[in-house]
């Protein structure tokens, strides 16, 4: 048995002990509430176990000690169910920390984002002296959302099956955030399975996110979600061809969120400098820099960076 294979069952066994330890602390709960709590704990734990399973390499690298200590502390904690929930949140945070060293930039980025959201939840919970069920429920609610987000992201990176991958893309189309566009972009460029017809489902996922999260941007540039996504993709492609090290450093456009940030910057500058109406007119006026084509046309062709450069000079120029 390899070291990796040997350590996993030990960790999983220890994690599985946690519901029992947590259960002993719930003397004040009714049997049905206890059952509910245990079921929810088990759901979270199962998800933790899956996370560990996927990232056992990092755990093998001698980083499991902290996790084990935390698990044993769970048994000695005080007698409120909230503290059990807190322990679980901490446990998740530790798991997230273990994910960090993995040498896959995309995975690490996701991990950092989820870790931050779990940490902020944990900080919020730390401030409370919670003893009533409704508050516990609200924190379970946040925790569940966070864990589901993490699980969905991992599912895209390491799909259980083609069907699960597709279902996860549907989920992103309805629940994904704009930062998830980077993940979808990465998945499209380096798919974990043969995409074929699934590339259309990735399109739908991206369009769903943009339509929901970027309404102001779509309205300002008068673009459909498909046009905005095409602008983003073309900008990234054009940016790869830029040879100037200065431009590459100053205007990064390697992933969708960076392009979106530039587009939002252009919008803000134009709206502040010209006002909303004139900004819109300017977007649709021919520009010498683009051989008489409009700024909006240039954007649709993926010329975001030259436009940004122009706007930056425009913004720095004295206003009369």
């Amino acid at each position: 048995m390899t070291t990796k294979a040997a350590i996993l069952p030990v960790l999983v066994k220890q994690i599985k002990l946690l519901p029992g330890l947590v259960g002993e602390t719930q003397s004040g709960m009714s049997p049905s509430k206890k059952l509910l709590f245990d079921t929810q704990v088990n759901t979270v734990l199962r998800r933790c176990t899956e996370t560990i399973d996927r990232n056992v390499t990092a755990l093998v690298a001698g980083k499991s000690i902290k996790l084990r200590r935390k698990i044993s502390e769970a048994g000695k904690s005080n007698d409120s169910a909230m503290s059990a929930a807190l322990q679980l949140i901490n446990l998740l945070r530790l798991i997230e920390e273990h994910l960090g060293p993995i040498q896959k930039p995309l995975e690490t980025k996701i991990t950092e984002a989820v870790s931050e959201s779990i940490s902020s939840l944990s900080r919020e919970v730390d401030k409370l002296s919670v003893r009533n069920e409704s508050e516990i429920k609200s924190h379970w609610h946040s925790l569940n959302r966070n864990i589901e987000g993490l699980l969905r992201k991992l599912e895209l990176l390491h799909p259980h099956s083609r069907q699960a991958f597709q279902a996860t893309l549907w989920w992103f189309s309805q629940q994904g955030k704009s930062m998830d566009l980077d993940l979808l972009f990465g998945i499209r460029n380096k798919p974990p399975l043969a995409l074929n017809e699934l590339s259309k489902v990735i399109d739908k996922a991206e369009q769903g996110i943009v339509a929901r999260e970027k309404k102001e941007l779509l309205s300002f540039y008068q673009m459909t979600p498909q046009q905005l996504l095409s602008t983003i993709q073309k900008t990234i492609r054009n940016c790869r061809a830029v040879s100037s090290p200065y431009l590459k450093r100053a205007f990064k456009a390697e992933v969708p969120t960076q392009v979106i940030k530039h587009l939002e910057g252009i919008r803000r500058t134009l709206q502040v400098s010209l006002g909303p109406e004139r900004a819109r007119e300017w977007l649709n006026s021919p520009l010498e820099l683009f051989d008489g084509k409009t700024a909006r046309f240039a954007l649709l062709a993926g010329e975001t960076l030259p436009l940004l450069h122009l706007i930056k000079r425009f913004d720095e120029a004295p206003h009369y």
Partner: protein
Amino acid sequence: MILFIDDEARLMDSYYNYLEIEMEPYGQEVRFISDVDEALNYFENQHAEIDLVILDVMMPFGKSFSASRSNSGLATGLLFYKRIRNLTPSLPVLIFTNYYEDGLEKLFANDSKCQLLQKSDYLLEDFVFEVKKSLSLC
């Protein structure tokens, strides 16, 4: 009997297991089916035995529905709902989904026996409460 249809069995098992425990005292069996074709077949043959259908929306369209009408699977459950209503106009239905589009509620506005629940808003106990309400158990 409660028929619970959702393609993501792995993610829904805690809901299913908890519902099964909570429904046992009421003599309600819970039948979970993740395959759309199997679920439709089961519903069409057994609808007289079913007291409530819990239905996801975003599911593979299978052989029973078309790719275009189901929007490549995004809206399969809505087509399934229409089949339910063709056979059983007053059977309680809970649409339990992550799917959302503007005007979705309007689809069910005239159907007092159908309720739309967003998955992300419902923890286990809230979900079970809604099931009990639909079956007039609370």
